[in-house]
């Protein structure tokens, strides 16, 4: 936010502030395992199809992915029912018989190269997006299209939300996370604004119910993207997830095992 403000301030102040892409030589740390195990159950579907990705970290500018093959992955529910994830493409493991149940406790087990990796989480429910509001004079400039996706927070319980906005022009979805500390029980919204939004575009809007731990994880994770710079930014951190190596508690594993109910709305910009 602060940098956006600076750019806005700087750009117009005699056009002297600027941003440019530069080359930086970076060191590369040893590769570490990444477990991308977020199971999403979209309202109105059976949620049987789920996938988990395994890969390793790579150099920051390295474009070739670094998938991890040959693992055996299983998710269990609290009554011991097991769902096996089979490797479908290199590093991607999938199942078509998952049985999602709200608030159920699930556990993840990954066996890889003689190590066993585990994690546990509850499947978090979420309320539906009840309406979308469009404002054509929004954003910092007052000229951008701005979307508000409204939902009603359930009263008296702690809720955490992840919003994702999918656009045709952004290479990856826009993520934002919210808690209900200041709006418990109220009707409130997720917000998205971009200068490139135009009438006719289809925007995918998702609300995910997430756990407090996953919320904390995402908050730190999202702070890393575009981090490491300005005087008004917080210190970068190691993003520690909930996966641990049963054989070696010191091993740092990136990623998270989480389960969310999801509501999705496809909105066409007016």
């Amino acid at each position: 936010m602060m940098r956006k403000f600076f750019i806005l301030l700087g750009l117009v102040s005699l056009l002297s502030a600027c941003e440019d892409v530069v080359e930086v030589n970076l060191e590369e740390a040893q590769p570490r395992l990444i477990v991308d195990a977020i199971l999403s159950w979209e309202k109105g579907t059976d949620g049987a199809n789920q996938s988990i990705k395994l890969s390793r970290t790579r150099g920051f500018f390295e474009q070739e992915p670094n998938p991890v093959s040959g693992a055996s992955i299983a998710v269990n529910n609290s009554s011991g029912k097991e769902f096996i994830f089979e490797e479908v493409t290199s590093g991607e493991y999938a199942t078509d018989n998952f049985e999602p149940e709200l608030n159920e406790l699930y556990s993840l087990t990954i066996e890889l190269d003689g190590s066993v990796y585990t994690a546990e989480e509850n499947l978090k429910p979420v309320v539906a997006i009840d309406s979308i509001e469009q404002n054509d004079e929004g954003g910092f400039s007052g000229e951008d299209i701005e979307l508000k996706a409204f939902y009603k927070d359930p009263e008296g319980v702690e809720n955490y939300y992840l919003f994702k906005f999918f656009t045709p022009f952004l290479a990856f979805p826009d993520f934002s996370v919210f808690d209900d500390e200041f709006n418990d029980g109220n009707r409130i919204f997720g917000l998205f604004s971009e200068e490139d939004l135009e009438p006719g575009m289809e925007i995918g809007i998702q609300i995910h119910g997430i756990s407090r731990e996953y919320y904390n994880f995402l908050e730190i994770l999202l702070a890393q993207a575009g981090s490491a710079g300005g005087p008004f930014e917080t210190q970068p951190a190691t993003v520690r997830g909930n996966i641990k190596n049963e054989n070696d508690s010191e091993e740092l594993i990136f990623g998270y095992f989480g389960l969310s109910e999801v509501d999705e709305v496809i909105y066409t910009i007016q």
Partner: protein
Amino acid sequence: MIKTSAIKFLFILFFLINVQVGTAQGYDLSGTVLDDTNQPIPGVNIIIDGSNRGTVTNENGKYSIKLAKGNYTIKVTYLGFKTVEQQITFNNDKTLNFNLVPQTEDLQEVVVTDNIEGINIRDPEMSVSKLDASSIKKIPVVFGEVDVIQSLLQLPGVSNAGEGASGFNVRGGATDQNLILIDDALIYNSSHLFGFFSIFNPDAVKNLKLYKGGIPANYGGRVSSVLDIKQKTGNTQKLKGEGGIGVISSKLTLEGPIQKDKSSFLVSGRGTYAHLFLKLTDNSNSAYFYDLNTKLNFNIDEKNTLSFSGYYGLDYVNINDSFTNIYGNAFGILDWEHKFNENINSNLNFSYSQYNYELDLALVGFNFQNSISNFDLSYQINHTINPNLDLSYGLSSIQYTINPGEIVPTTADSGINPRKLNNKYAFDNAAFLSVNQSLSDKINIQYGLRVSAFLRMEDESIDIYANNNPLLYDENRSIYVEATPTETIGGNTSRVNESFINLEPRAGISYLIDDNTSIKASYNRMVQNLHLLSNTSSPTPFDVWTPSGTYIKPQKLDQFAFGYFKDFENIPFTLETEVFYKTIDNRIDYIDGANLIANEAIERVILNGEGRAYGLEFYFKKNTGRLTGWLSYTLSRSEQRTPGRTPNEIGINNGDWYLNGYDKTHDVSLTSSYELNEKWQINSNFVLQTGRPVNFPVGQFEFQDLNIPVFEGRNLNRLPTFHRLDLSATYTPEKKNKSWSSSWNFGIYNVYNRRNAASLNFEQNTTTGQNEAVRFSIFGIVPSVSYSFKF
């Protein structure tokens, strides 16, 4: 352990006061130096011609020197005043008073006031930088907007976290560790526009003194430095004014007698053009700031002076009517100065200061406010026991009220619930004694003790935690987790919750090697009970102060400094070199992802750490002639660490030392001013600094369609070296009439248009999805012109 060393210290203190100063030979020559309005002038040079000896007047304008019998010429010099010479025949103790008259009508045409004759070579005071308004005005700055903090940054030992960063860092200390006083009133935030400018209107400032170390016992409350700014006192003779029109702001100052010879006023205002910057684009954004300063002074009689100083400043940023950000400082201080007799005078002052921050987010439909305010009552006596012994002692009491946040929904359909965080109340009481003593012709000492008693009152509600531990550690995941209170009990805001009593010894010594050379050493302990909650490299306007309490302990600093001071005899140069080492206990640090805004339970996101800094400073200065200026160089290191509370815990950054975000290994400033002729003056400023510590990713991980940079360790990398040259020229046309003078200032900031990186961001390009490093630089070359006038 602390107690016994304090008692020892007290013993030594009283022993020293009672030392008979009978060793030196000769008689005492002493007296007082007053200005044309009979105000004592501190810092006047008393030079004994032909003997290469001299002294300076103290805070009360008094001086004293031991001389052998003989005939002397006494030369009394002070910048901006006419030098007085008097011949005396000296054969016993003698009192000689002087009255100095201003050199010109214009007190501003004065250069840097310290060390001009190298006389303070003798004074045990060290680690102090003094600037007066005119030297501040000479330094070229961005947009030609003369700025107090920008000029401080050119001095050794002072830096900040980069262009556009707020505040300043002294000897590796944090921004919130600077005690900032204007006419003795507390200032909580020195920045305008997030730090591009500072709140000090240079036209209202008379001079400033920055204590980086060896801080006397009459100051306390912050551990790193004291910035003591004095506002100008209005002219008691006739109405005068000055002002200016610049690229960013315009300003106007008026001063004059209320009752001639007796009382005076000064009012000064500075304002940026409404809708600064932003209005240039065709939208409804606006941003501006302004300052109002005032000073009233009443010389009631020879013994009593009453004065009032006030300030009100505001920053306003509005973006598209959906985001409004307003903040500012205000203070008022009433000061009564009373002279009991020639040797004893006193100051009683009472002040109120506040800082308010307000955010209005119409977009979401709420208003957020936080504030801090204090009442401060203090009484100080300056007491000259004999020509070789000056005391200053007194009491002070500050009452703080902190509103950490209040959220109010602004529309009927706002999704935000109203919420008021508990106010926090505290008292900071102190008693102090500071002694300045001349032990011999060669040795001068300064020492003192401050006793501070900080009382934190109970909050209206108090959270109780299991095992008294608000921050849990999850060993499985190696992360800290906020605890849930076991119960919340009611508190009474007039009952003391925690009290912290601390002894803060201060000491300094100077030893004269020869008349132009001395070495000095100092030690000070300082305690800080107000902490700014900020987990960014540079504080933001919405950061909240919090007092020491159950979970936050007072920060404690110990600093040692050693210096070598030289006044070159035949050339007009002075050299000051110092080394310093300091440690700070109880510096709070924040767990990853800590949210500090509107957080009722800060104790759940903080850990106690420590800091240390050390360095070498070098200050080479030319004070007289057509070319004046200085070269300053600082070699330093500033770091902190926060280990886990038990060996199992990871702490912050694995408990390892890491560099502070404002650390700069090398910091060079070359500032000069050259008088080409009567009309033109050329000023330049060159800075060269090690790039700020930052973090470069050592890899990336893909998670949910996002590329996330991997960071290991903290602040292990640096931005590219920062350097910049600024030039300015001042043109003063010939005076057309007696009462009006004016000048033009033409400036070029960043002459060779270097793209100094303010930050490097490692991010995923939103269009291509590929990772890239983006350099953000704030100022390219910036020309400016401004016009100033006086009447």
